[in-house]
């Protein structure tokens, strides 16, 4: 949150974004991405990180979609407040 506030030092209406902020954010992003994290290299270009990020987000979206599809078939008979739902909830936690 604090970094967002400091980047909004817009005096003349032009936001000053420091390079260190961008580098720090990109390195955090790298740690989240599954493929790049395993590669031991410091010199991963920004465009590669962006590409991996987009691919990863797209695959996550696809997974949510597939899971919704599966669940819509499975949860057909399960009522939200029934005993079965309670059992499932306890299984997940």
């Amino acid at each position, binding site marked *: 949150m604090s*970094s967002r506030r400091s980047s909004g030092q817009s005096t003349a209406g*032009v936001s000053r*974004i420091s390079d260190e902020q961008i580098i720090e954010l*990109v390195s955090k992003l790298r740690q989240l991405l599954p493929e790049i994290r395993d590669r031991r290299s410091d010199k991963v270009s920004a465009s590669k990180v*962006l590409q991996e990020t987009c691919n*990863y*987000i797209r695959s996550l979206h696809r997974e949510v979609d597939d899971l919704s599809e599966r*669940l*819509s078939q499975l949860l057909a008979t399960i009522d*939200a407040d029934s005993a079965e739902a309670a059992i499932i909830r306890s299984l997940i936690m």
Partner: protein
Amino acid sequence: MRPPSSLRQEFLKKWMMGLQRYSTSKKNMSILERKKAIKLSADVAIASARNGTTCWSRALIANGYSKDGGDDKHLVEQILGPESERLIMKKVLTGGASVCNKRMRSKKILKRSCGIQRTRKFAPQVALASSIAKRLVRKRTQILRSLIPGGEFMNDVTLIEETLDYIISLRAQVDVMRSLASASELASEP
């Protein structure tokens, strides 16, 4: 980085609350309708876990508000509770868009002015390599912007910050949905 279990529990609780909104019409829903209901309540639930603090969550909630069937009980109201729904809708309608639009406008002006100078200063070979790299980054940033909800309103730094939070939340959502799917499969085995 595994999403914290608190996030997953929060999401599960809110998602279940959201699904209850459909409990009356559940018997008559087609599979496609049910899938959309599940997906929509999951999205609004994971967005509400952020309590309106991030741009993407506000955009998702606004999206859920408009996509909802819209009878007496709104999905968003079910998940957020009537008080917080009003607060968040205020943030979405007033705060978020105007601030981000100002940033985008000033960023565009800066980009336009920089672009004119950039081509004149550098030697041809350096200009080619760096301009290709910059073009790639710009193109991929645009793609990322289209993937994050509400991305069109963010500047570059905000976009990356929001991406970090969005990925963690998406992971929590996927984890919980996957667990529920496998648990349901186990439970439904004869």
